[in-house]
């Protein structure tokens, strides 16, 4: 493992604030942790130049405006797109809801939306609502026994009726990494709009949205070491220009009369009202932090952890790992079940030993039903995870098994 990563934890104040207790945070798929540089950037805004943007001509307002505009530029560079193609939202869920309203509402009865069976509720429920409003239907791309997308089923479902394809780049339950570029190419052959939900992938692997060839890509700052309350909707300029805004009001207009309004240029057309200025500045700081560490390094680091965890968990009797069995082909998210022990009890006992994991349906109830599991325990890794934490967590799982096998 790179020496760089042995010092990374020093950048995160939470690890030195636990009063000496064992604290192994293994729930990055839910939310990440915050480096000091992000906290400093947000604090500096509030203490040195708090003002609204695009409104005042005084110095701190100009500084705040430049900070937010620079945040768009930094995000655009990080994701490999143009500045005006980055819209800041509240989170990936809001970004998907924007798309569901702005694009989904154009659908007609009989049009089809392709989703996969591994989608998070945020990439399923908005489309269900679109279908209720428009008469369109959802068709599900199947997944195989290993949790990989069944591309044969995708090819069969794809047709001239397909108008929208919305797929997670990485599953928050299975760790599956989906072939977005291939899906985009085939989707465009039938003139479908392709959306990639990057909530799990951004921050864990290098992402170049142009290379992914999708029309839209969404993500959340809080899963990328930034603050909560900020997300990104990244879209092709020519599509964003044709879309109607979802939220209207101040900031997103060019002119307003008593009876009508015209819209501002991109990206401001889609950013109504005073945004989460401190959050956007914090998000920029997190992207700069990730760039300084290097997304390739991060991906290799987490791949190594995933391989270690897969090897240890797969060797435990009475424990079943879900998702691709080849650790190379999956992201740093591992969900599992333990025979005779409910995931909530696993998570509860791990919690008392200092390990933070998630148990439940992971906002993927249809996937749980498909897998035949009421709930699963999930561990997920990030930039601060160390191999030792995984070793100790697996040892704790063995101890839990012994406790439950006493009777």
């Amino acid at each position, binding site marked *: 493992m790179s020496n760089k990563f042995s010092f990374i934890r020093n950048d995160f104040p939470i690890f030195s604030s636990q009063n000496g207790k064992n604290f192994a945070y293994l729930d990055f798929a839910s939310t990440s942790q915050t480096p000091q540089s992000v906290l400093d950037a947000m604090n500096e805004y509030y203490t040195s130049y708090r003002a609204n943007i695009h409104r005042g001509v005084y110095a701190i307002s100009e500084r705040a405006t430049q900070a937010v505009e620079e945040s768009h530029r930094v995000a655009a560079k990080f994701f490999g797109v143009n500045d005006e193609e980055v819209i800041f939202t509240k989170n990936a869920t809001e970004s998907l809801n924007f798309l569901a309203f702005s694009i989904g509402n154009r659908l007609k009865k009989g049009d089809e939306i392709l989703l996969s069976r591994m989608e998070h509720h945020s990439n399923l429920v908005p489309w269900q609502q679109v279908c209720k409003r428009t008469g369109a239907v959802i068709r599900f791309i199947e997944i195989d026994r290993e949790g990989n997308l069944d591309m044969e089923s995708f090819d069969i479902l794809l047709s001239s009726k397909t108008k929208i394809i919305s797929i997670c780049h990485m599953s928050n339950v299975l760790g599956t990494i989906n072939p977005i570029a291939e899906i985009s190419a085939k989707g465009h052959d039938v003139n479908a709009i392709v959306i990639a939900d990057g909530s799990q992938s951004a921050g864990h692997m290098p992402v170049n949205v142009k290379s992914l060839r999708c029309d839209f890509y969404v993500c959340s700052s809080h899963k990328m070491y930034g603050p909560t309350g900020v997300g990104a909707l990244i879209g092709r300029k020519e599509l964003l220009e044709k879309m109607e805004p979802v939220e209207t009001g101040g900031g997103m207009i060019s002119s307003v009369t008593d009876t009508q309004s015209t819209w501002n240029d991109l990206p401001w057309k889609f950013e109504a009202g005073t945004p989460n200025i401190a959050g956007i500045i914090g998000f920029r700081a997190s992207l700069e932090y990730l760039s300084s560490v290097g997304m390739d390094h991060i991906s290799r680091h987490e791949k190594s952890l995933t391989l270690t965890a897969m090897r240890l968990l797969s060797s435990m009797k009475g424990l079943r790992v879900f998702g691709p069995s080849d650790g190379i082909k999956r992201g740093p998210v591992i969900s599992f079940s333990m025979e005779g022990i409910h995931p*909530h009890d696993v998570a509860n006992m791990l919690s008392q030993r200092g390990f933070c994991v998630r148990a439940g349906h992971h906002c993927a109830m249809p996937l749980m039903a498909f897998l035949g599991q009421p709930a699963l325990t999930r561990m997920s890794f990030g930039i601060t995870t160390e191999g030792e934490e995984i070793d100790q967590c697996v040892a704790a799982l063995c101890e839990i098994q012994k*406790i439950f096998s006493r*009777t």
Partner: protein
Amino acid sequence: MNSRNETDALYREYILEIYRNPKNFGILRPNTFCHCEKNTYCGDSIELSVRLNRDQKVSAVRYHGQGCVISQVSASLMTQTMKGKTVQQILELSVKDIETLLGVHLSGIRIRCGALILKTFQHGWKKVEKSSRAQKYHRFRE
């Protein structure tokens, strides 16, 4: 949040034995009411079927479900407690009574797990009260 000692106390042999071999497990028919509740946060579910006598006392009760130790053992122990009690007495039970039965303090989201059996009874009884056939059920005799 529970301390490690409290958590390990929850998973002691007596509790795990009940988890493996619960009492009153199953579905009761006929019944005065049968109701299912889920703890959507973590996947616990309880289906409770209750038979009341003419004095509105529980004469028989069963539960069916799946979930964590707290939710299922609470259900098993609480269904034992319910027998012979009136509806009103059961509606007055609280998480504290669950904690007494389990022998541990519950905190945070585990309260929802422990209280699931009580919530199931409360909502099941509400359905009976709202039903236009409530009076007919009240006269049901064993």
